[in-house]
């Protein structure tokens, strides 16, 4: 071990293990997290080529291989707790997004939440066994957070009892969903529902997009990868254009809203139902901010402990960079912020699970405040962490620019949190709406 960093650890005034337990939420959770991590990290099936040395296609290929293994192993070990699945998955993919993210994180949960019993019988097990590989297609090339602006249409044809899914303009082409380009053979498509000449707003439809055997795109479906991005090299963010594609009436997710065979529309009991999912995902993103900032500050502070340069007292040997006040002022407030965000993430998770029960009982009273808070905190923490990762990168001098530092990858894979799941400025204005109303 490097002598400097060894000395640093000998000087600590507290028991690291105890603090780790607090950050995990308890000693048992620390133990279990480590068990899961070592299951993955010691598993030869998850050995990989350094992605930094691979082409984009090779990175995608490697990610699909690991995801396929991951699905098998999760079943084999019987890991079912969402937290543990998350931990296992993020260890397999080292914190990077992976091609089945939306299948696991959006397609399956949406079936669970919005499919009626017939649809569950028809779609769930094939999806669980990856005969159906799904994604969740909401954002369009020209439209994002403002859902009313989405242009994709689903028009009901009572004569054939089918919906006609259509992308009427270029700006209506679905764009960005992970796994859409090359991986998925179904998509839950969010489209403006038209029936009996009226528009009833956004609804969800299960749309087959590739043949389940040959994986060839189906007639009327134009689907592919949107091309290289700032990061996210492992996943095939895709585009989807639908040219009057017909799907059975039964493919509209109808647990709440319904369209009868004759085209009559039945409203969902409460528009707030989708809030719950949004709050959940934004709470997870707050945790993501904490994790990313913890990584960045770990890299920057450890390196600042072993890196010697310049001088403080003339003639003396080059000091550790961490002894410069300016370096401390760059990094220690960010370290404090990492801790702050870990505790906020814990609070959000606990609060969400606390009021989920109320939600299921139909008590939405706390949801508006939590929805407003989660939107604001998602923006607040991701903006702060995004800027902070860049400060950590620069504080490592030129070496921060090398991919070996891990900081470029960390940055390019974290920065999308500022725009996806609700663009941050829009999130802040959602919170403001609640504040002004309150």
């Amino acid at each position, binding site marked *: *071990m*490097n002598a400097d960093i060894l000395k*640093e650890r000998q*000087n*600590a*005034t*507290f*028991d*690291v293990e*105890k*603090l*780790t337990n607090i*950050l995990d939420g308890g000693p048992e959770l620390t133990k279990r997290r480590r068990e899961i*991590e070592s299951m993955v*990290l010691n598993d030869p099936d998850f050995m990989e080529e350094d992605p930094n*040395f691979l082409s984009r296609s090779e990175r995608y290929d490697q990610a699909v291989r690991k995801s396929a293994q991951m699905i098998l192993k999760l079943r084999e070990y019987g890991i079912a707790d969402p937290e543990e699945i998350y931990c296992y998955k*993020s260890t397999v993919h*080292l*914190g990077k997004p992976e091609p089945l993210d939306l299948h696991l994180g959006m397609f399956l949960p949406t079936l669970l939440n919005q499919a009626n019993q017939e649809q569950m019988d028809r779609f769930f097990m094939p999806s669980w066994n990856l005969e159906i590989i799904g994604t969740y297609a909401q954002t369009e090339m020209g439209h994002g957070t403002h859902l009313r602006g989405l242009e994709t249409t689903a028009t009901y044809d009572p004569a054939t009892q089918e919906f006609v899914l259509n992308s009427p303009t270029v700006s209506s082409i679905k764009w960005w969903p992970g796994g859409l380009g090359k991986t998925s053979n179904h998509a839950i498509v969010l489209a403006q529902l038209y029936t009996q000449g009226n528009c009833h707003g956004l609804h969800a439809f299960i749309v087959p997009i590739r043949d389940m055997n040959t994986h060839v795109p189906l007639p009327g479906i134009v689907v592919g990868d949107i091309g290289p991005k700032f990061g996210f090299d492992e996943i095939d963010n895709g585009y989807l254009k639908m040219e009057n594609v017909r799907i059975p009436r039964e493919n509209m997710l109808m647990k709440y809203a319904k369209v009868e065979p004759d085209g009559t529309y039945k409203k969902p009991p409460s528009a707030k139902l989708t809030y719950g999912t949004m709050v959940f995902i934004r709470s997870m993103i707050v945790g993501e901010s904490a994790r990313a900032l*913890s*990584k960045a*500050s*770990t*890299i920057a*502070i*450890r*390196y600042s*402990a072993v*890196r010697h340069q310049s001088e403080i007292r003339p003639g003396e040997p080059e000091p550790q960079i961490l*002894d410069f*006040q300016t370096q*401390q*002022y760059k990094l*220690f*407030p960010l*370290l*404090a912020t990492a*801790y*702050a*965000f870990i*505790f906020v993430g814990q609070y959000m998770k606990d609060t969400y699970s606390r009021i989920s029960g109320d939600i299921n009982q139909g008590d939405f009273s*706390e949801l508006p*405040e939590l929805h407003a*808070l989660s939107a*604001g905190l998602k*923006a607040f923490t991701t903006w702060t962490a995004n800027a902070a990762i860049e400060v950590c990168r620069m504080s490592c001098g030129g*070496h921060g620019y*090398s991919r*070996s*530092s*891990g*900081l470029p990858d960390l940055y390019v894979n974290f920065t999308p949190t500022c725009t996806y799941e609700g663009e941050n400025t829009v999130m*802040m*204005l959602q*919170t*403001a709406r609640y*504040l*002004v*109303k*309150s």
Partner: protein
Amino acid sequence: YQQAKAGQQLSGIVSYLNETDHRRVQPQPVSARPTVVDINDLASLVEIYKLRAAILVGMAAKSIQQELQHRKNQADAWNNSAIDLVKASDAHCHYVVVKLFTDKLGEIGDTAVHSVVSSLALLYALHGITVNSGDFLQAGLLSVPQVLQISVRIKELLSQLRPNAVALVDSFDIHNKKLNSVLGRYDGNVYENMFEWARRSPLNATEVHESFYKYLKPLRSKL
């Protein structure tokens, strides 16, 4: 803000909009406001973060009112106040984070851990004030001498935290493979591993890259 203004009792985190009587949340000339803040006391720092949020919410709401008085419709009035509204939300979130951090300390039993995490919490709160000092000064929540005092206190905290910096990041307990960084590796053996990593670059698969034979060498013969 509107509900509180109408005398309605709010619940949850925003209830602070009830507590502060509106006269106090008006921006006041600094001399008129007694500012008794102990910059070492997190609870009093949480308090002024709360007041700052309340004031900024109030200012955003006032901006909307003023826009409406210029016969703007609600939507335009809202859009013309959006900067204030985002700022108010940011202040609200900042208050929530400082408050939750402070609350968390109460759950930490081990005194050594409590001491170091308290320093982090204090640094977080004071640094936030420094970065947003304009808000706190403009609202009369702090005096200029106090802001200067905070800068001094931050420098003390930096040196106070310095001995524990590495241990504090070790506490995140991020496995080397998950961290995936030569610079941040646990054993600190950065340079030798950086060299080894570089040598594995595909560009180094051959001592002489094919482009030399394809372009550089032929180029010479043409010059």
